[in-house]
């Protein structure tokens, strides 16, 4: 059985699951279990297909349906790049299904008939879009399956008018993207071709790739326009500035949290998948002189830099948990785009110089690795936000606080995810950003603008850290808010159920695993490049695997940079033990006490420092970036008490409780 057949089976399992789950939707638990079973089965099949391709190379493609009159054929082909995305989709979708089991209980007033069937269709659409090779009919079917199903999921809470609005925006954005991509494909398609002894239809990826060198020679302008269409179309999907801002921050918070995790962790990655395919896999090495021109490389790296800065700066001003995360998704996609841009910028010089080729490959490693890591930690963050939403019933960070004690598992996993997305060493975000930065800084000898991009990216990493200290601190640390205290009084226990905890813990382990052993991630990408030999990817697969130093250390060929996480872990652990020992030297005893609030202890809700107040002196310089807008989830009163604190803590004596 080839990988393509297995993938067909995985898609079929999801589609069948969507049908089977319909009659049992009245029984909430059973529906969740059927959904979980289907997701796990499909996930196992997809992961199996992905792993077999990574290990043994792509098998025979599978052609389902040929439509010569339309120039299309539904051909399934799993290569290394697809395999990486398949693994990601399989992992996140299975965990999202596990999380949904208990999470969907708090939507008692909404029928699950609007949830589980679409969940399965959505997952099937995502599996299909990364393995289909046809860029017209096949692409259209998969894209619409993915889009329409997720549209239904975004408007799941249809009684809130802002969710319907968000869903409609999302739908329009995706249809525009679809039209752009199809138009791009139509411009590039030259006619049927025979590639490697096989006849390929007009719109098949292989046929288009085959015709590219001719097309570049004769009508370069047409290729430019087509690539622009691809960049815009896939860019809209990936949340690239300025298009991402149109739909992403509205759609992600509107969907139920497991769906937000899927949207942000996986679905927007299909946009990056499309960009990687169209800029690296479509063009052959012999056409490199004509493609892509210097302006293109500058444009992609520049767009990536703008996207990461703007998205993160806008995120810094958010007060709604899921909206904050959504803006960070835009920011993090910027890093991935920057990696792709750096890779393209270094490739032409890389053809002549093996060392530069190594850097180009390193940039691509960073880009794809960051896509994987972002999938893991951002889904985890959305699940964390979902746990808080289901426990406290609000997305408003101003009304949260002191959840560390009542929700320890959620708190610790959220801390791990926050440190990962901020790129703190020993967590997975650091490993991928490291390779991206190393490639760009060392590559600036050939493309000087990359060094500027890196400085902006490093600055943005600090902004990300600031934003997540706010996210984590305002919700889990700080002081217990009135809303939290009220919930504890009425429900007793706040921590989410076992299955939700299990989903969060699994993802947190993933963050640590890739952080401590980044070599494992590099190996996956190395295999992915080696098992998808087409276009410029052949070039990228050529330099040796990032040299391993020490146990799980990584270093680019030539050893001009290095990172050995295990040694850093040991040294840091030793200093931590030393610090703990020093603090015990005096043998003092600890005593719990009340914090000192200048005698205004009774007004604790009024003088809590809420999320609204963080970093105002910096963010006010960036009001022109926009992004706040009238927040649909903003509850009355939160802003007022926060302003009282801003005016001077403890001065509000009008409170009746004093």
């Amino acid at each position, binding site marked *: 059985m080839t990988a393509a057949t297995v993938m067909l089976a995985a898609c079929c399992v999801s589609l069948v699951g969507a049908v089977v789950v319909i009659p049992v939707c009245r029984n909430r638990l059973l529906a969740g279990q059927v959904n979980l079973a289907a997701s796990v089965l499909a996930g196992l099949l997809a992961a199996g297909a992905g792993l077999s391709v990574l290990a043994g190379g792509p098998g025979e493609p599978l052609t389902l349906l040929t439509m010569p009159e339309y120039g299309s054929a539904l051909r399934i082909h799993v290569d290394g790049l697809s395999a990486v995305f398949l693994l990601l989709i399989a992992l996140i979708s299975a965990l999202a299904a596990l999380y949904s089991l208990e999470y969907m209980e708090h939507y008692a007033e909404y029928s699950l008939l609007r949830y589980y069937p679409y969940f399965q269709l959505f997952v099937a659409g995502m599996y299909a879009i990364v393995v289909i090779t046809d860029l017209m009919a096949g692409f259209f079917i998969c894209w619409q399956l993915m889009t329409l199903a997720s549209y239904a999921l975004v408007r799941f809470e249809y009684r809130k008018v802002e969710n319907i609005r968000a869903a409609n925006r999302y739908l329009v954005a995706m249809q525009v993207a679809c039209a752009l991509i199809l138009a791009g494909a139509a411009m590039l398609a030259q006619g049927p071709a025979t590639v490697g002894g096989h006849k390929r239809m007009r719109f098949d990826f292989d046929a288009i790739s085959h015709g590219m060198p001719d097309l570049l020679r004769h009508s370069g302008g047409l290729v430019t326009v087509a690539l622009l269409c691809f960049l815009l179309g896939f860019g809209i999907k990936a949340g690239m500035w300025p298009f991402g801002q149109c739909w992403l921050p509205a759609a992600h918070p509107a969907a139920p949290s497991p769906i937000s995790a899927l949207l942000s962790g996986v679905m927007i990655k299909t946009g990056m998948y499309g960009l990687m395919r169209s800029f690296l896999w479509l063009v052959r090495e012999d056409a490199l002189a004509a493609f892509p021109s210097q302006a293109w490389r500058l444009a992609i790296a520049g767009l990536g830099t703008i996207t990461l800065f703007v998205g993160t700066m806008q995120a810094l001003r958010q007060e709604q948990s899921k909206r904050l995360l959504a803006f960070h998704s835009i920011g993090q996609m910027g890093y991935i785009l920057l990696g792709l841009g750096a890779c393209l910028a270094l490739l032409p010089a890389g053809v002549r110089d093996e060392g530069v080729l190594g850097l180009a490959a390193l940039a691509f490693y960073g880009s794809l690795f960051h896509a994987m890591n972002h999938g893991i930690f951002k889904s985890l963050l959305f699940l964390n936000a979902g746990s808080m939403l289901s426990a406290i019933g609000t997305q408003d960070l101003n009304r949260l606080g002191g959840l*560390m004690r009542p929700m320890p598992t959620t708190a610790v996993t959220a801390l791990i995810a926050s440190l990962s997305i901020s790129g703190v060493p020993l967590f997975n975000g650091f490993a991928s950003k490291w390779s991206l930065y190393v490639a760009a800084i060392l590559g600036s000898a050939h493309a000087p603008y990359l060094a500027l991009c890196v400085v902006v990216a490093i600055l943005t990493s600090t902004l990300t*850290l600031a934003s997540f200290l706010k996210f984590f601190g305002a919700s889990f640390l700080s002081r217990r808010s009135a809303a939290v205290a009220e919930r504890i009084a009425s429900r007793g226990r706040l921590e989410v159920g076992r299955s939700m905890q299990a989903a969060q813990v699994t993802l947190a382990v993933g963050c640590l695993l890739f952080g401590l052993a980044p070599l494992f991630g590099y190996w996956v990408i190395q295999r992915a490049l080696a098992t998808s030999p087409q276009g410029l990817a052949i070039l990228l697969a050529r330099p040796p695997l990032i040299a391993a130093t020490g146990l799980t250390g990584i270093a680019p060929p030539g050893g001009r940079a290095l990172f*050995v996480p295990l040694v850093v872990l040991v040294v840091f652990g030793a*200093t931590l033990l030393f610090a703990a020992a020093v*603090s015990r030297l005096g043998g003092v005893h600890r005593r719990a006490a009340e*914090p000192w609030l200048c005698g205004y202890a009774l007004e604790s809700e009024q003088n809590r420092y809420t999320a609204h107040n963080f970093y105002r002196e910096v963010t006010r310089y960036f009001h022109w970036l926009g992004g706040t807008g009238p927040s649909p989830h903003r509850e009355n009163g939160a802003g007022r008490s926060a302003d009282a604190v801003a005016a001077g803590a403890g001065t509000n004596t009008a409170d009746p409780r004093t």
Partner: protein
Amino acid sequence: MEASFGVRILHGVLNVALVLVLAPLFEGILRKVTARVQSRQGPPVWQPYFDLLKLLGKEDLETGESPGVQRLAAWLSLAAILSVSLLVPMGGASPLSPAGDAYLLIYMLTFCGITTMLAGLAAGSTYSVVGMSREMMAVMTLEPLLAVAVIIGVVRVGSLRLDEVLNGSPYAHAKLPLAGLIMLAVSVLALQAFIGRLPFDITEAETELMEGPLMEYSGPKLALFKFTRMAKVVVYGSLLVALFAPWGSGLPAPVNLLALLAKLLVLVLAVTLVAATHARYRIDQAIRYYLGLLGASFAALVLALAGY
């Protein structure tokens, strides 16, 4: 010129010991000189050692709702600054250079800041969180300055390895190292802020925020945080010396150490004089100042990329 494993361990122990011993001494000098400038007698130079020892034996009050995080934050703060001291050369090679590069250094420096912020958040007092927010704003605008200085060095020498970067690299391979000189000026102007001294001690701001993130801490935890603050002078000082004034570090063993000490002493005196004669800035004034420095450092980076 790879040093052996044993030599690296020795250097590492030496660095940690240097930080542990020097930090309170410099603090003592700082206090004494400040007092003299302000026509006071001032405490003896050894006073900070006694302060720390005394704090280690004082009762430990925990006011936050998550005391575990408070404890962890205190340990992390010392662990982070000591780990950074292992990445910075102090009179020898950087001991941990086979495990990480310049980018790890940039991130570990940021991590030093996180620990105080975590402490402020966990303490749960409004003042602590105000202080934390201020600290983060300072980190946001200051950290890129160091990053730019390091990246200019990296671009010049074409390598991220610490032993090559932390060796006067911003001046390397340029006839007139304009970018390096600009970054030297920027770093000197920002040093006061890096180590959180007047006029930039906005995070702690005793007179308005009552020590900010640290106001709820006492006993051994306060000792660890106070020590970390003192240690920043040594670590950041050594880092600037290594980046911009590494002369003498190649000399045989005791001489290079003495050279470093002399340079650090000059830095401490300069910091003290500024601190003793300036009043604290408001947070918005400080941010504007930092943003100005950030602009200058961007200009320096562009110059460096153009080969100056």
